[in-house]
């Protein structure tokens, strides 16, 4: 029976009154990730918004064990946790490495790539708000072309983001998926499935950021859905090489009602200086990637 809002476990692992901004998609995503893992987890978190969500000593707003680690070493830290647990013969816990896009696409990619090549047995989740939001929104490897940030203040970013999920798939790991905080049930199912898989697993979770992207914090869910409806985010999973579109992306593929990317871009202040040329370039990129997904999907 598919999980829904009514039958999903009541137990929460995120306590009220945490330090995230109002309308934070990370807070929403993390809530459902921990529910899907039933709290049977040791998390390792680098310097990031999630560190701030966890709170300030001597308090934390999260009821699972968590090991903070310097920015570049999330996957290495997770590897250490897995090795330690194995050495002590402790089983049944999922080691969850969870970092932002800066900590995954940029400073932490070396440690992540090595861990994936070693097939270290942990679940790595990248919550992607497309910029260094914890330090006030500087551009990252995931910031889109044309987006304003603290370090691309006037001209906007001149390069498009890297496709980290494709990079991770290229490591031949058993489970890779994309998810989106605006589709919590799809995220919940994917984390639950990933929990049962052995080896390195990677889930790329899209988490819109109200202050960073300049939209009002009541619109987080709407912006996240718009990203899928315009193809900026494609919800899929790749299990031992089999590519399957999921949730809204699957229904959009079947109905063929992808909406123009402009509708998504115009909702966000970070794109206020984006040029027509950049919009067209992004639309072309989205269309090409959407087509690749349609060709690969086994469930259409």
């Amino acid at each position, binding site marked *: 029976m598919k999980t829904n809002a009514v039958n999903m476990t009541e137990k929460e692992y995120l306590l009220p009154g945490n330090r995230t901004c109002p309308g934070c998609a990370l807070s929403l995503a993390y809530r459902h990730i921990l529910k899907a893992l039933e709290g049977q987890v040791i998390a390792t978190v680098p*310097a990031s918004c999630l*560190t701030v969500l966890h709170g300030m*000593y001597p308090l934390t707003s999260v009821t699972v064990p968590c090991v*903070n680690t*310097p*920015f*570049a070493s999330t996957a290495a830290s997770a590897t250490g946790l897995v090795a330690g647990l194995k050495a002590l013969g402790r089983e049944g816990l999922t080691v969850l490495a969870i970092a932002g896009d800066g900590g995954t*696409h*940029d*400073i932490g*990619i070396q440690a992540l790539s090595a861990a994936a090549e070693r097939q270290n047995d942990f679940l790595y989740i990248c919550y992607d708000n497309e910029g*260094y939001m*914890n*330090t*006030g929104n*500087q*551009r990252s*490897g995931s910031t889109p072309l044309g987006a304003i940030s*603290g*370090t*691309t*203040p*006037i*001209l906007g970013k001149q390069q498009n983001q890297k496709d980290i999920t494709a990079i991770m798939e290229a490591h031949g790991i058993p489970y890779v998926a994309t998810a989106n905080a605006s589709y919590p049930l799809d995220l919940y199912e994917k984390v639950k499935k990933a929990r049962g898989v052995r080896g390195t697993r990677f889930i790329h979770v899209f988490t819109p950021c109200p202050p960073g992207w300049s939209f009002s914090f009541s619109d987080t869910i709407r912006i996240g859905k718009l990203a899928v409806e315009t193809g900026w985010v494609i919800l899929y999973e790749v299990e031992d090489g089999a590519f399957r579109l999921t949730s809204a992306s699957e229904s959009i593929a079947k109905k063929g009602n992808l909406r123009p990317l402009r509708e998504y871009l115009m909702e966000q202040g970070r794109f206020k200086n984006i040029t027509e040329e950049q919009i067209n370039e992004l639309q072309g990129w989205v269309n090409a990637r959407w087509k690749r997904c349609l060709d690969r999907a086994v469930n259409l």
Partner: protein
Amino acid sequence: MSRKITRKASGWILDGNHAAAQGVKLSRVQVIAAYPITPQSPVTETLSEFVEGGKLDAEYIAVESEHSALAVCTSASMVGARTFTATSAHGLAYMHEMLHWAAGARLPVVLACVNRAMGAPWNVLNDQQDSISQRDTGWIQIYARNNQEIIDSVIQAYKIAESVYVPVMVCYDGYVLSHTEMPVDVPSQENVDRFLPPYKPHTILDPANPKNYNLVTLANPRVNAEGVLCHGYMELRYLLQEALQNSRETIIRAGQEFGELFGRSYANMFWEDRLDDADIVIVAMGSLAMEAIVAADMLREAGHKVGVLGLRVFRPFPKADVLKALKKSRLVVVFDKNISYGLEGATCSEIKSALYGSPINAVIRNFIVGLGGRDVKARELVAAVNKSLSSLKEGGLTQEYPEWLCAI
């Protein structure tokens, strides 16, 4: 809100980060590679705005980590470009390998360290553990007490670095200076151009005259193709130490020239406040050296003859100058915003080594203060000095371990 900075006739009002960025712009830096980290990030943002707004003709590389930030700078400097990076705490620590490399390669990179506490655990506030932890990497270290000294030190850092071919770290307190606005006189571009000649690299990267840099270097000296006996590894390392030892003259001359051109002399390795008649000396570094002057006032009003030695250059450590300055002191109270774990504050050890073997028989007391942004008030400095005074008789010249101003 685009910032039209108000400019009174003589000066602007800038926080430390903006002062540093202005210094980089005036120095006509050509390659900037930096990674965001609190509290440094406004420096990278301001420089990005200068570059994108056409106000600074430079390449801004948004690297993926601090380790790469310095790797970009060292190679750009090797090619002959004037380079800059800025970081704090864990960013500086992550650069550690490259800090050694840049100094060993004798590259005049200038780095702004916005001083911040080291983890674990996480703390984004100010102390000087980060730059002090890098004191053995072969970099010259200059500490600023206020935002005027930040912009002035960045400009002088290039003059110094490019004369002695040693990289320079300009350190200033995170938040206490980096995010605090105060009046700053911004020199004119013409005067800075007059002060700062173009960078002439000691390296040649030209296919017409191919040279290879920093290959494997054996323990013993080795003869080259022309029969000349060249250095072994140790000789190269000795030359780096020699360069740091000799850089004192360059630092003082640069400070003098700066004074002649801009009206603010830096012909010193530390700031002296009423040391001439002082028998009690407070030693501090960075913005704490300003607060210490207020403490000295309070102690003077209570009848003590107190002076302040505000350390400016921590590497090369000015032993001879310190010796001269402390010759009349009977009590030296050293406040460290760092701790060399297992021993004492780093400044205290350097002061003791400076006095060793000299006729000065001063009692030395070391207080660890202000770690992780713990506020340090002038009256607390006064209390520490008074406590040291009362322990003069039975305390002995030094104590085994420093005292901490904290709530343990």
